[in-house]
């Protein structure tokens, strides 16, 4: 001390006073200056070292009482001189766990990571823990990658990576996030398994990997389940683990050897053809569509114990409601036709058109997964869905007409075949219109809304509750542009002896049906050529 100049002595006393009054920033900056200027002064060196110890202790104490802001101002001071001790960093990192805000916690952790303890495992495991809770950014992605360098296989870092690839980086949509993570995990495990072929030894590595990866993961809940599944998937990728403990089950390696023998054997141990039939020929198209229809009907009926009953009862209520309206509008007859059969024919044909169009418009709806069968085309499933309308409403119409005839509200049909042809025309119209609508929706999703208006307009103008002969000529002229009005009036003309429509034109219907079928097929072919959506 005596060797020092007066100015330095004054400066040293000032630093000591600042330390005593707990002005550590001032004391430390003075101590650093003094130490640099007087490297051979033992008192100053001693003071400096004591001050570092005190500040380290102070940091720990501040972090214990959640005074992180003050603690980090001191950490910055010490870290700038490389004096932040590993034990202090560890205590602070542990105390930071009390912070609820993951973002704030990460900011503090990054501040520590910038200093000498930047490669410490305890620090990166804490950082990784914050990552999945913070919105993913490139910085989080890089932090996660860095974590994986320090702690290979860290679950939280992998989760953060997964989130980043999955959410924040839509450009990387060409492979699933799972796969990226799986690749990393598999690569890590493969490295550990290198040269180990004996199964018990491999199993030990898997067990260690499980323990290591699950370290720090909450032991309950979805996160844990997800972690376990992810680990098992990784192990499963590398090794087929036998879970069957039944006696006589070969050991894994023996089992794989057996499989290898089966695969490499030229003759095969047992001919498959002995019990598996081989038939040539393809299924008839109608049978195929019928089978698809059954699949669709089973699916719809499976939601309820009396689902098959609802398949008929629900549409029957619908038809009954539509049939009730003519009762309010007309007396007992409409142009000499009994009002109940009049309503039933109109309602059934309209519903065939409507339901067929909706079924076709959905592009097959519930049957879409069937497209994975190479022998099933989009056309097949559209037809199968639309067939639902034809079958259900033919059944309902037949039941209601039978009831009406039984109770004396109508007579047997004049020409049943003609009625059936009209029914098919309504179905063709509905299916073709629905197919065109499906193609338009594929190009512009908003057409779905426009379609609602079109169907309502068609419903009102298709003669459900009236005939065109009852309308003023100008109005009838416009409404007769609707082919469905022609179809319904033709059907009524074929059923009733009392009525023969003057306005309905079978030629107009035939031409319109032919044209709309061609247009719908052309539109469907065009749509199928467009790039399809593929889900990974």
């Amino acid at each position, binding site marked *: 001390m005596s060797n020092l100049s007066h100015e330095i002595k004054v400066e040293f006393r000032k630093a000591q006073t600042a330390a005593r009054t707990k002005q550590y920033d001032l004391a430390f900056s003075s101590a650093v200056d003094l130490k640099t200027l007087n490297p051979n002064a033992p008192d100053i060196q001693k003071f400096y070292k004591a001050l570092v110890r005190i500040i380290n202790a102070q940091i720990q104490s501040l972090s214990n009482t959640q005074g992180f802001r003050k603690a980090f101002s001191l950490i910055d001071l010490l870290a700038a001189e490389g004096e932040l001790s590993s034990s202090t960093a560890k205590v602070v990192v542990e105390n930071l766990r009390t912070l609820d805000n993951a973002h704030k916690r990460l900011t503090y952790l990054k501040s520590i990571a910038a200093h000498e303890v930047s490669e410490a495992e305890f620090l990166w495991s804490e950082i990784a823990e914050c990552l999945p809770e913070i919105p993913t950014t490139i910085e989080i992605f890089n932090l996660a990658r860095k974590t994986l360098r320090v702690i290979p296989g860290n679950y939280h870092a992998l989760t953060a990576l997964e989130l980043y690839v999955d959410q924040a980086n839509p450009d990387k949509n060409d492979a699933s996030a799972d796969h990226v993570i799986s690749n990393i995990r598999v690569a890590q495990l493969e490295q550990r398994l290198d040269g180990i072929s004996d199964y018990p030894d491999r199993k030990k590595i898997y067990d260690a990997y499980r323990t290591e990866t699950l370290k720090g993961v909450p032991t309950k809940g979805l996160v844990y389940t997800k972690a376990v599944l992810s680990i098992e998937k990784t192990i499963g990728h590398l090794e087929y683990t036998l879970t069957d403990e039944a006696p006589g089950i070969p050991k894994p390696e023996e089992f794989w050897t057996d499989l290898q023998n089966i695969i490499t054997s030229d003759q095969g*141990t047992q001919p498959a053809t002995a019990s598996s039939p081989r038939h040539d020929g393809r299924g008839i198209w109608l049978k195929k569509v019928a089978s698809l229809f059954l699949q669709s009907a089973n699916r719809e009926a499976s939601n309820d114990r009396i689902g098959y009953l609802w398949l008929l009862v629900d549409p029957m209520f619908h038809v009954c409601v539509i049939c009730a309206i003519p009762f309010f509008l007309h007396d007992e007859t409409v142009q000499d036709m009994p009002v109940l059969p009049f309503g039933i024919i109109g309602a059934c044909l309209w519903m065939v058109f409507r339901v067929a169009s909706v079924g076709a418009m959905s592009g097959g709806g519930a049957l879409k997964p069937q497209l994975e069968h190479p022998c099933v085309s989009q056309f097949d499933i559209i037809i199968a869905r639309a067939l639902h309308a034809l079958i259900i409403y033919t059944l309902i119409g037949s039941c209601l007409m039978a009831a009406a005839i039984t109770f004396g509200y109508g007579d047997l049909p004049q020409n049943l075949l003609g009625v059936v042809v009209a029914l098919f025309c309504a179905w063709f119209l509905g299916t073709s219109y629905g197919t065109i609508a499906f193609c338009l929706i594929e190009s512009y999703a908003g057409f779905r809304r426009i379609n609602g208006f079109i169907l309502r307009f068609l419903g009102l103008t298709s003669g459900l509750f009236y005939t065109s002969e009852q309308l003023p000529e100008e109005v009838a002229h416009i409404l007769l542009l609707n082919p469905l009005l022609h179809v319904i009036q033709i059907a009524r003309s074929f059923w009733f002896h009392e009525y023969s429509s003057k306005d309905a034109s079978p030629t107009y219907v035939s031409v319109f049906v032919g044209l709309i079928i061609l247009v719908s097929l052309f539109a469907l072919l065009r749509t199928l050529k467009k790039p399809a959506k593929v889900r990974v």
Partner: protein
Amino acid sequence: MSFLSFKNLSLSVRHELRMKRVLTSQSFEFPIGYFALTAENRLFSRALIELICRKIAPQSGHIIRRGRISWPLGHAAPFSAVVTGKQAVSHISVLYGVSRQQTFKFVKENFSHPELLHTPMQKWQARDRSELLLWLALVPDFDVMIVDTSLVFTHSTSFSKRYLELFMEKTRGKTVLISPNQARFTKLICKSAIHVSEGKISVNADLEWALKNNNLVTLQKELAQEEDTNLDTLEF
């Protein structure tokens, strides 16, 4: 002779509102044998499977199918779970033009739980559903078989062995495309791979390389990005 070939075929697909080009004017004959189906990313291999199964259509060019193609084994979607096992058997018989009675007999002989066949499949355990669907795949005579699942099962070694015996017998002299879901099995059964990358499809004799490069594009992109940002000098 090849059962399946592409002629000047171009295929693009949409994925998450983006357009991805999978194949560009490719003419390719699928050889006979067992091949791992690999691609630079999962989207491409999935698109290829859907193209072969006619689920999606190419924008230009033709697919020439000279044989019968299977549905992707392992995909449960084409089988409605609400139907009973018997109805599923019947559906497959109709679709692929095989005898319903013989199909049912074959399934009954081989399926571990024949008593389940009269109950809705949605009540079964997933492993039983998978087993039935795998047995069903052995009934029609497929010339091109697509396998997008593991054929080695954890719940029954006897099933795996028996199935593999019949599978090998049935697919001998046919084209079998296997997604490498189970690396060890793929290495055991395949000698080479059919790899889709950069708009091209080709046979790659180096199976190890193909498996390593399967679905690796994202990872590689990330690694490249990491090099660009130079993590070592990155300041936190």
